[in-house]
């Protein structure tokens, strides 16, 4: 779902230009408003969508999950630490709302002090595993967690 900008909401502050890891959010030379210069190169990281202080950037959903005429809008609230999404189909009947935590601890606190950790051994460096694997992907807790292993199944309208 590449991003696009509502030109009338954008005030050309440049937050999206600063944050885009693909360097594809830029300022239009005539209108001084942001736009996605290369939608097919968009990583769909949504950094710009979340960073925009005016909710001027949205995403176009792919036609298989949200037919044309839909709307996918987002509202980020730093102080609450949440991000809310609303996906509305063009018929106006399918109207889904999602709310998820962005962080569970206050920003800037509890930053891992990686410099204080012991350096990896030669054996760890030569291993295929990345830093803190298998702990961080919970492989050390009875194998890879799946919906099935957690007794869950996919249901319509439920996101895991």
């Amino acid at each position, binding site marked *: 779902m590449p991003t696009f900008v509502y030109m*009338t909401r954008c*005030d*050309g*502050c*440049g*937050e999206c*230009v*600063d*944050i885009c890891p693909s360097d594809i959010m*830029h*300022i239009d*030379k*005539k*209108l*001084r408003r942001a736009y996605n210069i290369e939608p097919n190169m968009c990583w769909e990281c949504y950094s710009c969508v*979340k*960073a925009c*202080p*005016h*909710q001027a950037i949205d995403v176009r959903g792919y036609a298989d999950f949200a037919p044309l005429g839909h*709307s996918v*809008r*987002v*509202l980020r*609230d*730093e*102080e*609450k*630490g*949440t991000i*809310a*999404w*609303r996906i*509305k189909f063009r018929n*106006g009947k399918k109207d889904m*709302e*999602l*709310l*998820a*935590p*962005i*962080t*569970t*601890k*206050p*920003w*800037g*606190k509890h930053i891992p002090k990686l410099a204080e950790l012991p350096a990896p051994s030669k054996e760890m460096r030569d291993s295929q595993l990345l830093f803190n694997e298998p702990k961080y992907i919970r492989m050390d807790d009875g194998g890879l967690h799946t919906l099935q292993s957690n007794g869950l199944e996919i249901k319509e309208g439920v996101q895991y």
Partner: protein
Amino acid sequence: MFTSNLFSELSASISPSIMQGYIVLMVLLVMGGTILDMMHKKSAQYFFENAKKASKSAKRTVGAGEKASLAASVLVNEVLTSGEFSNPRRRLSHLLTMYGTVIFVVTTAIMILCYPTPATPTPALLPQLWHLGALMLAVGGYWFWLFIRVDVSAEGLPWFRFERADLFILSLLATSTFALIWSFTGGGLTVFFALFVLSSTVLFGGVYWSKFAHMFFKPAAAFQKRIIMADGSRENLPPEYDLTDPEVQRKFPDIPMYMGKNPPNMGLCIKAERAKHY
């Protein structure tokens, strides 16, 4: 220097009626440019069509009293204090530029229309305000042009690179700069006066090509933004949830599971510091 009306002193060289005619011509050019700009960009048409579309998904009707209170809120927050800018530096620069322009333009018009010759002595406050307005405009404008402008601050482009979209700010800067230089060099019919007139003619005559007309559209757009929030249509934006509400916690169990039943204030996140890429 700061207490004398430079325009009345100029009346020895240029007839006051020519100066007054120039003021009227500039007002007409701004009106004409704004109307042409509105017709060309179809901004008013878009605005009304968008408002009509938004009203279809309204969940409640906003009464006249509430609309008046929203309009007052727009006046205080957006119009008078430029609250739409989330960047405080940009807001301060905009306030300096905006109030500087208003003070400078209004005092110029008053001095030319009401005190055109030395026969009608000008109150000392007016020239002082004229200089103050020009200075505020120059300070806010150069701060914006050299450091805050998105091309410089986010795109990393050099300050001297400009586009047609910069016509408004550049003509504003030129007007205030040449006005101040004209005053500091003693006024009169000089090359700085000619440059002052030329830059102000570009400023008021270039409305069709510049961003000048934004000052008429912005309050209407800000009012519409508040209306869509008040009537519940929200342009399809998600609602603002109260995370402590049991109903919200039931609907989104991730919230109490990962954040607790009474999540703390998480801080400023991305707003905590400015990007420092350049």
